[in-house]
């Protein structure tokens, strides 16, 4: 009997121990997974792993395979862009080696010392030299105080004059309205008037929207350009600036900014395009390809979308689409980029030399050639501009338009202390309240100014 009792106790003890062991192993495994950053650290045996955070449409499996073939001993660990994950990886001290970002917002990371200075690599490179870089590459430059000067902390992969407008000339024809010039820009007032003439309504619904200039935090009104950089551009066209000369303060109550904000309010109240008063669930891209939008302000890059569209209206759209220059609000003609998408290397990258090799490949190799010929953006290196597509009439005209408008390119004055997304969100919330008569426009402008300055103040403290 004694042996039976002790046998029962042993089995129970065994079960208890097994439960503890299993739980501990599971817990340790979970913790190890949570701490994992994608394995950028060198291993005692096996290849060097380069972690890249980007989009799979730009860094395709085929490009990864080709790079790995050209660089035996290097394995790429690809992560889809995710801001939350990026923050966590930085907080853990193991950021990705290469990170996708926008040149226009690069100062946020540069001011915090998070990006690697690429000038030493540019000086040594045999395929990627400073002389090859177009002025757009200045978006990733940082001199410690402002963007546009100093060393390069990233490289733009391609870009667009994002204020340019795609026009569906077939809708113009149906409305009996002449298509505007593709060399002389519209004024914003004329742009809005065109929207009123081209909008087609039926029984309380809108069948065809006249224009879409984007809207702050473009959400249900469709994917469109964010309004914040568009407003910066409108202000600069009038000779003003949203930010102070040292970029530490913002002022949305100046006459120039007020005029830009008023235009957006007038646009929404005219019901000629998606806005908080006319939300659209389908998206501006879909509206245009469904021939329900006459003028879509998305920039040159959308030409790639029109060309690659396979919907029922694809062929008609490719014949009817015309690229028009960015509208102007003042005497200084400016047509800028609202993004400047590119990649940068983390200052804490454990493999900066290998990361640079990938940058060289991505900026000058097969991916660069494919990008240039696709029409999805203007190349950021001189040697690829001639590869821009000019097969169809639409592509030829768009190319000509870009060439003639490029001379008016000027970078937007953007502060390193507040991001585009933050300003866009603050603008969106304030303008909504104006549209619903909860705030007057002057009060909204003050609210925007106060909220943006609060963020800027805290950002300056964080930068140190």
């Amino acid at each position, binding site marked *: *009997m*004694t042996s039976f*009792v002790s046998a029962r*106790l042993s089995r*129970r003890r065994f079960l*208890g121990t097994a*439960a*503890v062991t*299993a*739980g*501990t192993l*599971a*817990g340790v495994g*979970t913790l190890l997974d949570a701490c994992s950053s994608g394995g950028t650290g060198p291993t005692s045996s096996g290849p060097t792993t380069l972690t890249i955070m980007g989009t799979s449409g730009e860094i395709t499996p085929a490009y990864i395979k080709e790079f790995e073939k050209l660089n035996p001993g290097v394995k790429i660990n690809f992560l889809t*862009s995710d*801001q*939350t994950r990026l*923050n966590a990886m*930085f907080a853990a001290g193991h950021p990705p080696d290469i990170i996708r970002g926008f040149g226009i917002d690069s100062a946020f*990371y540069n001011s*915090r*010392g*998070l990006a690697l200075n690429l000038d030493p690599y540019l000086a040594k490179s045999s395929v990627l030299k400073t002389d090859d870089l177009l002025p757009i590459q200045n978006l990733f430059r940082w001199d410690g105080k402002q963007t546009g000067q100093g060393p390069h902390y990233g490289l733009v992969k391609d870009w667009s004059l994002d204020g340019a407008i795609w026009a569906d000339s077939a809708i113009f024809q149906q409305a009996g309205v002449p298509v505007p010039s593709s060399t002389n820009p519209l004024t914003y007032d004329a742009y809005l008037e065109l929207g009123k003439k081209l909008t087609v309504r039926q*029984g*309380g*619904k*809108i*069948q065809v929207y006249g224009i879409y200039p984007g809207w*702050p*935090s*473009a*959400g*249900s*009104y469709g994917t*469109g350009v964010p309004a914040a950089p568009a407003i910066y551009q409108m202000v600069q066209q009038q000779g003003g600036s949203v930010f102070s000369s040292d970029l530490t303060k913002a002022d949305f109550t100046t006459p120039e900014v007020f005029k830009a904000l008023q235009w957006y309010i007038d646009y929404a109240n005219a019901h000629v395009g998606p806005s*908080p008063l*006319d*939300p*659209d*669930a*389908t998206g501006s891209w879909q509206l245009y390809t469904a021939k329900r939008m006459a003028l879509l302000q998305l920039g040159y890059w959308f030409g790639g979308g029109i060309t690659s569209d396979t919907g029922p209206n694809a062929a008609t759209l490719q014949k009817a689409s015309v690229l028009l220059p960015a509208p102007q609000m003042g005497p200084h003609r400016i047509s800028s980029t609202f993004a400047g998408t590119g990649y940068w290397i983390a200052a804490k990258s454990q493999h900066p030399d290998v990361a640079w090799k990938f940058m060289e490949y991505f900026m000058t190799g097969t991916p660069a050639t494919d990008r240039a010929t696709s029409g999805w953006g203007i190349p950021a290196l001189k040697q690829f501009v001639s590869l821009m597509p000019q097969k169809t009439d639409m592509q030829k005209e768009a190319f000509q338009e870009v060439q003639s408008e490029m001379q008016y390119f000027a970078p937007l004055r953007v502060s390193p202390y507040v991001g*585009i*997304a*933050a300003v*866009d*969100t*603050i*603008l*969106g*919330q304030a303008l*909504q*309240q104006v549209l*619903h008569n*909860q705030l007057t426009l002057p009060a909204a402008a003050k609210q925007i100014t106060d909220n943006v300055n609060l*963020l800027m103040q*805290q950002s300056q*403290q*964080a*930068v*140190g």
Partner: protein
Amino acid sequence: MIRVQPGQTELPPAVHQPRQQRRRGWKRYSSRTFYLFILPWLAGFLGLTLIPLIYALLVSFTNFDGISPHWHWVGLSNYRELLRNTDTWYSLGRTLFFTVLAVPLNVAGGLGLAMLLNERVKAVGVLRTIFYVPSIVPVVASAIMWRLIFDRDVGVLNAVLERLRIPVITWLVDPTVFYALLIMILWGLGGGMVISLAALQGIPQELEEAAMVDGANGWQIFRRVTLPLLSPVLFFQVVTGSITSLQIFVQPLLLAGNGGGVQGLGGSVPRGDFFYMINVIQQFLVFDRFGYGSAMLWIFFLVILAITLLLFRSSSFWVYYEADHDHE
């Protein structure tokens, strides 16, 4: 009682040992085994709940921006700012308003459906499934679907209104968007229905029959017999429903649409749907204010705790447990 014979030097066999001794050994052993078995959950709770909570509390006293290596202790300034900020109070107010509407409608609607489907009719199983399925459709899919349904120009809802010669409604703007969201939430009534149905089927029929025999009509039976017996389950639904509703953010965010990525997060949400958690997400992911956002979350935790405690306190007035002697 053990009798030890004179000269006996050995104790009788174990089977004759006193029971008291064996119970003490087993009690000590059962506690240890208990803790050993809950250790995995305890480790998870510590590592994935308690430690992050404490970390968030510490971050709430700093100006951490989520990415910068330089951040500073700011004391209570995040808390002072959020208590003074009009957006905090506005978003909290909208959240409470939504909860006060959504929870009773959900619970009452689920109960009503359960009562209708508690009958023995043909194909009642199919009907129950049909009503239940919407509650298991993924939130993202249902939000995208409802956004298309509510679209003014191409949505099916306005197409029906047009057929009925009723003017179309722009659903996704203030103030109608709030009610569009409620409709979307109530579409998932089936989850509550299943719980209420299970509770209804647990009510002994003889109680209702006895009431009928005593001359009670349908409403009196429901009011005096069914409802009190259902009250514990309804209380459970009210508490869990309130906690869920207070934290709502996915549905209003998706209903408003998002231009993609962080850019539009929360900024496109109509003012009527600007709930507290959307405000919090904006602070973290758009404004990079991790410290401030953490402070907002801790205040919200206290608000939810207070509301839950209030509900528990109120339960003594309207929740009846069968073994509850206080209500006898």
